[in-house]
């Protein structure tokens, strides 16, 4: 009896697989839609960010009626679960089965490092609207990848200069998440700060799964002038609260990397965030007609305030569309499309004017923002704008690239 049952399962499983495998496979067509594959985390720990990314992308495509150069645009969305191996599997699916023309999206740095060789091997034009790890467009660039977002240390270089010129803060303690994004943020702040007479006097690294910042806050040197914090998501919320509770807010002004007060977490913060100064290539409070229009449309679609993630993907989608326009809709010519993606020049994005450098990273405005309460709501008020900032800041690119990537121990902390 059971033998027959087993045979049925075996046959059934095989049948199910073949049925599933033989699923929709479309032939490449010259006149079909322009297919854009989007990788975003829709489940798991980063689902909220993924939703912002998806909303931003869809908003732009809807605004142009999902049409470009006489062809329809088809957006194919795949969930990465915030897992890089899954992202790679989904990228394969998008390229092999869906025959996409452009690949975009991705959140985690590791995903960027994995998509690099993938994009080059598949010769698929790829854009990174969010993934910011410095080396993706510095020491390890990929021919087929253009970054439309930012590099981690890009906002921090001018921010350090601003701090030196506009504040009396010279001795700074850094506290940040103990991974590449944290190290590159702190390193990007430390190098120009120390070149101009400031000092990092202590570096504190917190594990990614920290639940209580009290033991770390207790270590903060009380004779410093300010604290630079780098947190993302839930950790940013908790850090702000505990920084205030520990009585540090009154004593040590808070500086930070842009995500620490990004609008993806800012509405959930209380008055403890007021006064924090951070730097990023975007703020929802950028006062231009383009940004106001974007903010209004986004609020209507998603029911929330814009964040850097949603702007990144809104402008990222526009970037792809501009390139498709430039090649007259002939996306089948991949080399031409790639060349067009590397030449995109947008004057009126919500974040400001953007062009792209030789290494495939945007040159764009960097905003120094201060958290203020306006009309009962917290916002990142822009207090200074650095126009056309490159990922290399004022340094010579060749010499910059000869130095190591910013890590946990580089630049070393001489004054600690």
């Amino acid at each position: 009896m059971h033998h027959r049952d087993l045979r049925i399962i075996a046959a059934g499983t095989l049948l199910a697989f073949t049925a599933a495998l033989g699923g929709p496979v479309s032939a490449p067509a010259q006149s079909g839609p322009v297919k854009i594959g989007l990788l975003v985390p829709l489940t798991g720990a980063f689902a909220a960010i993924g939703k912002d990314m998806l909303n931003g992308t869809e908003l732009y495509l809807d605004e142009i009626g999902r049409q470009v150069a006489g062809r329809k645009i088809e957006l194919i969305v795949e969930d990465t679960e915030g897992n890089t191996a899954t992202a790679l599997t989904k990228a394969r699916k998008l390229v092999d089965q869906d025959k996409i023309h452009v690949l975009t999206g991705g959140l985690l740095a590791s995903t960027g490092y994995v998509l690099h060789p993938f994009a080059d091997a598949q010769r698929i034009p790829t854009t990174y609207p969010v993934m910011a790890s410095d080396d993706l467009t510095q020491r390890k660039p990929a021919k087929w990848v253009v970054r439309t977002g930012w590099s981690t240390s890009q906002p921090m270089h001018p921010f350090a200069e601003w701090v030196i010129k506009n504040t009396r803060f010279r001795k700074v303690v850094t506290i940040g998440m103990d991974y590449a994004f944290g190290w590159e943020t702190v390193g990007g702040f430390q190098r120009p700060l120390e070149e101009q007479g400031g000092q990092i006097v202590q570096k504190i690294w917190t594990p990614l799964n920290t639940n209580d910042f009290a033991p770390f806050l207790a270590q903060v040197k009380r004779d410093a002038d300010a604290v630079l914090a780098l947190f993302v998501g839930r950790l940013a919320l908790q850090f702000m609260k505990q920084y205030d509770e520990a009585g540090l807010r009154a004593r040590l002004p808070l500086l930070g990397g842009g995500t620490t007060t990004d609008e993806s977490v800012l509405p959930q913060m209380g008055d403890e965030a007021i006064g924090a100064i951070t730097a990023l290539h975007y703020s929802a409070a950028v006062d231009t007609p383009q940004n106001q229009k974007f903010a209004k449309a986004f609020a209507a679609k998603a029911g929330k305030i814009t964040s850097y993630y949603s702007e990144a993907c809104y402008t990222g989608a526009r970037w792809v569309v501009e390139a498709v326009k430039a090649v007259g809709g002939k996306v089948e010519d991949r080399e031409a499309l790639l060349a067009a993606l590397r030449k995109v020049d947008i004057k009126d994005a919500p974040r400001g004017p953007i062009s792209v450098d030789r290494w495939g990273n945007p040159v764009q405005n960097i905003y120094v923002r201060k958290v203020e309460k306006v009309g009962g709501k917290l916002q990142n008020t822009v207090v200074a704008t650095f126009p056309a900032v490159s990922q290399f800041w004022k340094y010579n690119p060749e010499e910059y690239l000869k130095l190591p990537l910013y890590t946990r121990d580089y630049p070393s902390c001489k004054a600690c």
Partner: protein
Amino acid sequence: MARQTVLAAGGLIAVGVIAPLLPSYPLTLLTQALISAIFAMSLDILLGYTGLPSLGHAAYFGVAAYAVAILAVDARAGFVTCVVAGLVAAAGTAALFGLLAIRATGTYFLMITLALGMVVWGLAFRWVSMTKGDNGISGIPRPELALPWSLGAPLPFFYFTLAAAALAWLALGLLVRSPFGMSLKGIRESESRMRSLGYNVWLHKYLSFIIAGVFAGFAGILWAYYNGFVSPVDVQLVTSVEALLMVALGGSGTLVGPAIGAALIVFLKNFVSVYTKRWLLILGAVYIGVILFAPRGLVGALRADAAPLPPAEG
């Protein structure tokens, strides 16, 4: 028993025959399913045959994957060196962890293996000079063997994995049918009785732990080559839990069951998610359904000669 083996072998051959007809994406999923199947079968040796539920099985999988990644990327080592190093790394880690874990049973064993797994995760995450931390190691080249086909293409790599999976299945199948495998089952049923019969229970469990680790490492080696990428995700708790689910879904103590469970999970994840964003709900419903209606797993439920349910504490 023999007919079941024939059927499973037939299944493998059938998959091998239809493979050239498939587009490359389903083919890569099949490859992934085969690798997960080896991983799940290795855990079945511990969970199903020895009665030791491990929550840290990803450690051996990941250690081997990291060994391959570090050697292949940093040292440009060849295929044989990488495979041997991967297996030795997995065996060494299992031998060390086994010394600590084997003394416990049931929930305590779960907790010790969980903690040991977290140690490996912590190392992968924090030992940045070696593992590149959170960024992971990417750019692992596919192995260059003296074959007429390059393993860089999906089809040859699929056959390579198929051969590896068949080999692993054969080896594990022989193992569980050997006198050693019979003693493991005896230990699962009653440790004290086996001890009073004069068996060295500790040594049997220890060897079983190492063998399971080595085969998990074997899967890890293939995984490193398949993705060309290794990161702390490969050694984290979720990976260990997913392996447990594969075994539970297919039926522990059946070897074929976990392999089917692994294939089902890989395909459910990747196909259902195309059609709905709520695919996790469906996956969850499948798990609950199986636990409610087929607590011995899919294969276990259909076996007339299935052993009685293992004690609840397992």
